[in-house]
């Protein structure tokens, strides 16, 4: 799910770098607060390298010819906690972008956000919520699969939004999303199962290694409801910010068409392919398409950005309810 | 000079690894530390370089024992100064080597101590030639044989020009040829040497003094010949006579029979 530089406009890339940097700054502050953090640094390093190395191993999916990989963000969080895990993940993504040509410098912010931020922070909310009353194999599987699926969905949603706001593709938002989300649902399921298998093994062999999995988990220091609220606010702010910037950025599209054709209006021919595609888009689209295609008003894009956030909010709220139901069942 | 004054250590309070150990090792001495598994040998080395710190065992830290290296006390504050004086060759070379090539691994320490490229290169050459592995320079540390890894590990600490060398089971992964090579190199290295090993033949050949540890206490400290020929002492502490001495005894009893 690495985004490449080419899929981003400088404005969107810049906003994502700023957002990720803010999250990194906060995480560093949190990590350093722990008086013993220096002891944790080798673990952060090796877990990052581990995620990197295991992402290169193919896990055969039973019953199919294909293979899957591990969900890095969630694994790191389950062992290091969200803040240290997030920093490790940044390291992994930086090295991948520089030395392995996965992603790019400008896209680093977006990649950190799409993969590390959701994987670690949303992942930690889910993990922590489910492990509240102690860890068990079943709970680890549930947390891994749920966490992996949700964080990947959010990541895929962000990728779609960022690509479209950058204006590099003609794909309508709805169609793009309709292609991205189901693919990542399947990937998320597989990644979740692989991650669960590894974490279950760790739980059996060395349970003390798992973050927050003991029943004597410190309460209050990490309230998951407040975190959820903070995260949702962050979504809204960032979604809105990206949209605004994307639209205020001198519109390359129109300017260049004008130069090329001497005409601002591009008339698309009513061909078979186009109308079919438009039909698909019409039936799948959540949002009015014009806001993305010919964005001439800042308001239009901002509205779409906020609407996007609201959808994510819905997904999150659903996760929260699911977790609460699970908790209630446990206590009943 | 190395001084340990009333040092105790435990990973878990109910099972002390070292209790009330005091000893003194002079400059230029080569001392063997012998003892069965779990006697506290490796722990002793780790305390010397500040990888572990002594446990006050109920007393306040001020009252507890201390370790001094050339007059500098091993504390968290003095770690950099202490570590620059000591080269520690790990038991497991795989844990010690981590840079991609031999040359870079040997250059790691001098670079960290702020030497420039020219001086670093000089140190690297010096260390490689002392150990006699100039030909391995460009090799990947992951492709070396066990014996080569051990020699490279040695070179990586020699490039720091340490006054004191600590060896943790140096011959454990070596074949007879490489073991012999190690024994031959040892006297050329200079400085104070501490060798932890249950290869008593190695200690017999290389060390002038032996410290025998058992269950965290020093049970004997003295001349190598005296301690390593004391069969009942060694057997009481989970060790055996060195093969060389066993052989000599066999030979002399055979001589007596033939006479």
């Amino acid at each position, binding site marked *: 799910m690495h985004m490449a530089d080419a899929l981003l406009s400088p404005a969107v890339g810049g906003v994502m770098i700023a957002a990720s940097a803010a999250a990194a700054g906060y995480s560093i502050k949190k990590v350093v607060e722990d008086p013993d953090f220096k002891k944790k640094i080798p673990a952060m390093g090796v877990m990052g390298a581990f995620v*990197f*190395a295991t992402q290169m191993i193919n896990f055969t999916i039973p019953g199919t010819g294909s293979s899957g990989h591990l969900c890095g963000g969630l694994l790191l969080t389950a062992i290091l906690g969200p803040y240290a895990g997030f920093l490790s993940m940044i390291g992994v993504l930086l090295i991948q972008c520089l030395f392995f040509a996965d992603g790019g410098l400008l896209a680093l912010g977006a990649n950190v956000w799409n993969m590390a931020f959701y994987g670690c922070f949303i992942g930690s909310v889910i993990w922590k919520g489910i492990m509240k009353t102690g860890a068990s194999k079943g709970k680890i599987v549930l947390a891994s699969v749920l966490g992996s699926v949700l964080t990947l969905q959010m990541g895929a949603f962000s990728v779609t939004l960022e690509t479209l706001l950058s204006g590099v593709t003609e794909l309508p938002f709805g169609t793009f999303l309709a292609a991205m989300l189901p693919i990542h649902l399947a990937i998320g399921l597989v990644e979740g199962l692989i991650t669960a298998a590894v974490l279950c093994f*760790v739980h059996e062999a060395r349970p003390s*290694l798992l973050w927050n999995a003991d029943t004597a988990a410190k309460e209050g220091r990490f309230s998951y409801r407040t975190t959820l609220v903070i995260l949702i606010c962050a979504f809204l702010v960032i979604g809105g910010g990206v949209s605004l910037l994307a639209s205020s950025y001198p519109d*390359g599209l129109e300017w260049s068409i004008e130069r090329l054709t001497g005409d601002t209006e591009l008339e698309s021919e009513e061909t078979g392919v186009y109308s079919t595609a438009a039909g698909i888009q019409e039936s799948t689209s959540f949002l009015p398409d014009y806001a993305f295609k010919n964005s001439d008003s800042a308001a239009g894009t901002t509205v779409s950005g906020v609407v996007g956030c609201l959808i994510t909010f819905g997904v999150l709220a659903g996760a929260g309810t699911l977790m609460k139901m699970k908790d209630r069942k446990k206590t009943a | 000079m190395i001084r340990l004054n009333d040092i105790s250590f435990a990973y878990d309070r109910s099972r002390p690894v070292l209790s009330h150990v005091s000893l003194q090792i002079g400059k230029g001495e080569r001392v063997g530390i012998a003892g069965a598994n779990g006697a506290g040998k490796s722990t002793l080395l780790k305390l010397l370089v500040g990888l572990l710190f002594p446990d006050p065992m109920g007393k306040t830290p001020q009252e507890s024992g201390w370790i001094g290296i050339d007059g500098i006390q091993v504390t968290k504050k003095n770690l950099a100064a202490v570590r620059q004086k000591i080269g520690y060759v790990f038991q497991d070379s795989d844990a010690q080597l981590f840079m991609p090539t031999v040359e870079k691994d040997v250059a790691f320490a001098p670079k960290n101590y702020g030497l420039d490229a020219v001086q670093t290169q000089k140190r690297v050459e010096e260390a490689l030639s002392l150990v006699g592995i100039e030909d391995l320079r460009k090799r990947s540390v992951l492709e070396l044989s066990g014996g080569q890894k051990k020699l490279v590990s040695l070179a990586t600490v020699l490039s720091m020009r340490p006054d004191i060398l600590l060896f943790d089971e140096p011959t454990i992964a070596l074949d007879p040829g490489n073991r012999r090579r190690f024994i031959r190199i040892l006297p050329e290295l200079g400085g104070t040497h501490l060798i932890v090993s249950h290869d008593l033949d190695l200690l017999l050949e290389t060390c002038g003094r032996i410290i025998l540890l058992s269950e965290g206490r020093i049970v004997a400290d003295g001349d190598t010949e005296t301690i390593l020929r004391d069969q009942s002492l060694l057997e009481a502490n989970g060790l055996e006579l060195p093969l060389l001495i066993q052989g000599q005894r066999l030979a002399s009893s055979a001589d007596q029979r033939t006479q």
Partner: protein
Amino acid sequence: MDKLDDAIRTVRELDEADDQSPLAKVHPLAKLVTALVFAVLVTSVPKYRLDLCFAMGVWLYGYAVFFRLSPGECLRRLWGLFLLLFFVGITNPILDRKVLFVMGRVNVTSGMISMLSLFLKGALTLFSAWFLAVSCGMLNILSALKAVHVPQVLLNVIYLIYRYLTLLLEEASRVFTAYRLRAPGQRGLHFSVWGSLVGSMLLRSMDRAETVYQSMELRGYQPEYAFTDSTPWNGTSSLYLILCLISMALLRFIPIFSFLGSLVMN
């Protein structure tokens, strides 16, 4: 596993390239800034301005030639990137069918142009990031990041990931070879060993990390002070930065090549 071996080769190649680059005298921060500005300039090219994409390509090619940089391992990764860009960009020629000009018998549409420019932008940013990596090496990039006040904790973590990476890639490769020898004909890891094989590798790695870190500390690695700039900013760096930025901006904003082309065509 091919991917693992591939990664091991890449890390080795990067470590080899480290000090021998002719760019070694330039401060890493200057190279980092150049690469970032290049990425911004390339991605800001409007999607129908294929000419400007080519102009940036000319700049990068000149840079590579001048400093004797080669795409090396990076070339192999181009295909993965193109696959991704294909997925995103394929609809451009389908949906955006305004005919711009006719080449022979083929109608060249704006969608084709925008897809081509997407591919070009992808390749260019990929190469420029790779050139940054090979001309700096990890340590220098970290010292560049330190120079712009990225917190030390993060730098340490990144450095350790990089250090452990070589060790873990080899370990993973060994473990997987051992697995494959006993499970012939399998392309991936069977689900029955997902947890145990990878999980035990995780536990072993954690233990080993501890001792490797001790070995680093004993040889003078001090996390608080690491990556301090050894080569100060010098005149060469300033000159390099100024020349790079100016030449880049010239090619990006002044359609020199269109002018050149029109001269030739007339």
